[in-house]
């Protein structure tokens, strides 16, 4: 038998992940940053030195110092505390929105990709129509129509993200619909639904996870963008977009810390998810690295 020797050490998925991580320290850093952001979101509110809402007119517009690491804003609130506390809100909005689009998009996309036919045609028409709007503009329209609340920001973000998942799942399911292993599963006595749910869909998950990671970053950007133009989150709630918007008024007079720190923090969070997405892409498929 000229087959592969049996004694060769199995090259498991775990080995591969370890290899990729070791050869790509950037992904390791990204995982570290993710841990930090999650810690800020979970523990932040109980650890920050000041009440993020407490005003102190005597102490307004102080530049960064030992007492106030990120300085204070126009009504004397501690920018550092506000930035850290905002992590939870921004992360919650994007995680909820992405979860919704993931679930809805996966179900619709998988069904359309597997069965095709009118279902596929109708779904594609709907997705085409959603994608026919510049997505951020559509989100503005939705929030304006549904009402200016945080929940509606989440719904709007979910709706504009959904087409990406539906399209990705549709494509991934579609290329595997007639794959040998899917046909073999039918011969083994699996119904169509079982073949789709247990054999085809799990194989579409890795590229989905990459999309989730990249999408989380994008969802945070969108949510912050919406609150920057005055939608959803209302002052004085600490939120990165709204803090940048308030700080923008002071930038031309040189009080840079009001806008720069929340902006940097927002950037870091988005950057982390993007790095993570690229890293996951390497783990999932080294050839697709771009």
């Amino acid at each position: 038998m000229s087959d592969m020797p049996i004694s060769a050490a199995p090259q498991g998925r775990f080995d591969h992940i370890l290899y990729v991580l070791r050869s790509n320290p950037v992904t390791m850093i990204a995982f570290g940053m993710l841990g930090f952001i999650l810690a800020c979101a979970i523990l932040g509110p109980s650890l920050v030195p000041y009440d993020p809402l407490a005003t102190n007119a005597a102490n307004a517009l102080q530049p960064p110092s030992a007492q106030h690491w990120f300085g204070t804003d126009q009504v004397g609130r501690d920018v550092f505390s506000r930035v850290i506390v905002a992590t939870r809100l921004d992360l919650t909005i994007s995680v909820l929105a992405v979860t919704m689009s993931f679930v809805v998009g996966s179900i619709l996309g998988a069904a359309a990709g597997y069965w095709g036919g009118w279902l596929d045609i109708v779904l594609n028409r709907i997705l085409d129509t959603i994608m026919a709007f510049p997505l951020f503009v559509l989100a503005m329209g939705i929030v304006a129509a549904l009402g200016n609340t945080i929940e509606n920001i989440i719904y709007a973000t979910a709706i504009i993200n959904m087409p990406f998942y539906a399209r990705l799942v549709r494509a991934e399911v579609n290329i595997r619909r007639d794959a040998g292993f899917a046909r073999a599963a039918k011969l083994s006595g699996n119904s169509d639904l079982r073949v789709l749910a247990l054999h085809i869909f799990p194989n579409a998950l890795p590229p989905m996870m990459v999309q989730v990671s990249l999408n989380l970053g994008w969802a945070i950007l969108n949510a912050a963008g919406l609150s920057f133009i005055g939608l959803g989150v209302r002052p004085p709630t600490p939120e990165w977009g709204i803090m940048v918007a308030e700080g923008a008024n002071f930038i031309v007079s040189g009080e840079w810390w009001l806008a720069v720190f929340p902006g940097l923090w927002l950037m870091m969070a988005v950057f982390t998810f993007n790095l993570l997405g690229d890293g996951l892409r390497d783990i999932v498929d080294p050839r697709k690295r771009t």
Partner: protein
Amino acid sequence: MLSVRDLAVSFQTRRGQVDAVRGVSFDLARGEILGIVGESGSGKSVTSYALMRILDAGGMIKQGDAEYSGIDLRNASERDMRDIRGREISMIFQNPRAALNPIRKVGHQIEDVLRQHASATRVNARAKAIEALEAVRIKDAQARYDAYPFELSGGMCQRIVCAIALACNPRVLIADEPTTGLDITTQKAVMDLVRDLIRERGMSSILITHDLGLAAQYCDRIVVMKDGEIVEQGDPLTLFSTPQHPYSRKLVDATPRAGESIRSLLPPEDRRPMLVHAIEDGPLVQVRDLVKTYQGKSGPVHAVKGISFDIRQGQSVGLVGESGCGKSTTSEILVRLLDPTAGQVIFDGEDIGAIPAKGFARNPRRADIQMVFQDATDSLNPRHTSRQTIAEPLKRLTRLRGAKLAARIEELATLVGLPLPLLDRFPHQLSGGQKARVGIARAIALEPKFLILDEPTAALDVSIQAVVLNLLVDLRAKLGMTYLFVSHDLHVVRLLCDHVIVMKDGEMVEQGPAVQVMTAPQNLYTKALLDAAPTPPERRDQTLMTGVS
């Protein structure tokens, strides 16, 4: 003409340095056609890329020399190499459609080469390109000049690739698996053309192929490569009659040819006596006026146009034809993955063609009809271990669970010769042959009465094909299965099957006992197919195993 001494090529990969070619030496004489034969990963293609200095990123010539007419190919400047490529040494590739720029007219692609090597000017480029097209016997070359690759057939694309390669009258042509992926009649047309052109122009050529039979037919001398080394070289006749190296002997044995038994594909020490498989008179499967029509973009596509045949209990029927003949559609209908447009599929007295494919998973007949798929890699779920894969039909369609299930899986693994430790591996950790075994184990797990084999060895190297074919023959006898063997390879069908059906364009053109169809074909198309199959020379040892077939 071309002289290679101790050539070694290595690739820088993430697992460190990999030696693809290790100290290869050979000469190419003026006017000679040299065959380089080896299985996948033997370094045969890499050798030719190294000569042309077009190795992929990370590849480098580590040592050795290559000399062409006094030019040191290893140390020549990139500018000199560019002049050599296309003008002195040319290359044609496998998968001709992908080898052409998809968005550039083929005429312009030929002109690019002519202009590059100053063989044509702006004024006469078009005329010269058309000449080049005519030289590769393309009819209506004027019109073809303006065609894009996607408008042409695979065989036509390979002619265009030849035209590009030969446009500047090079002295050497390297052909890298030029007919892989082409149908057998197209393969013959392309190979005959290449040989005639080389002989006419007094060129030398290197033919790189995995098919020893093809090399023997077209080459003056053959070099056999394994694991980056040359194990043997000589003229085809000597190589086939008295192979010296154990590997070339194995390769010679495994190459299917006329008038032998399936056991003779194996090395002599592995040739156990054939087991008897009994054929009964009663039909197991009766196909009546089977029609399948798809709704295509430009009108209906008639994939199967009303075919009828019987398969007797215990019989092995070969279904032969070129791509697009409807053989895969037919087998998909028989295995009940696809619904026929019209006609009957009577299995064991019941018209199963009338049962919709959608609900067939829950039909009690499901376990009786199984299939081994074409591409073992594609047919295994990448996220399931071999054990999970083999367990799937048992869990869905039998009541076996727990220890009994585990015992049955191990029994099946042993039956197909899959070492038990491999049961817990994922497909990407298995070799091609091992994956094929897992696929076969899954297909026979329910002890089906009727097994459809859809080109089960098409993706395998020839030595592994020999092992797998013999395994299938043994299982047939042990389990008393009836086979429908779908293939494009007539030699293989002859070895495995009792009865042969030949299909063309959705119709059955001939059927009959295998021996009769293969030796005295009645139909012109069957004759053409048989003619096109490469005929390797006779072997030295004619001590055939007495096989029952």
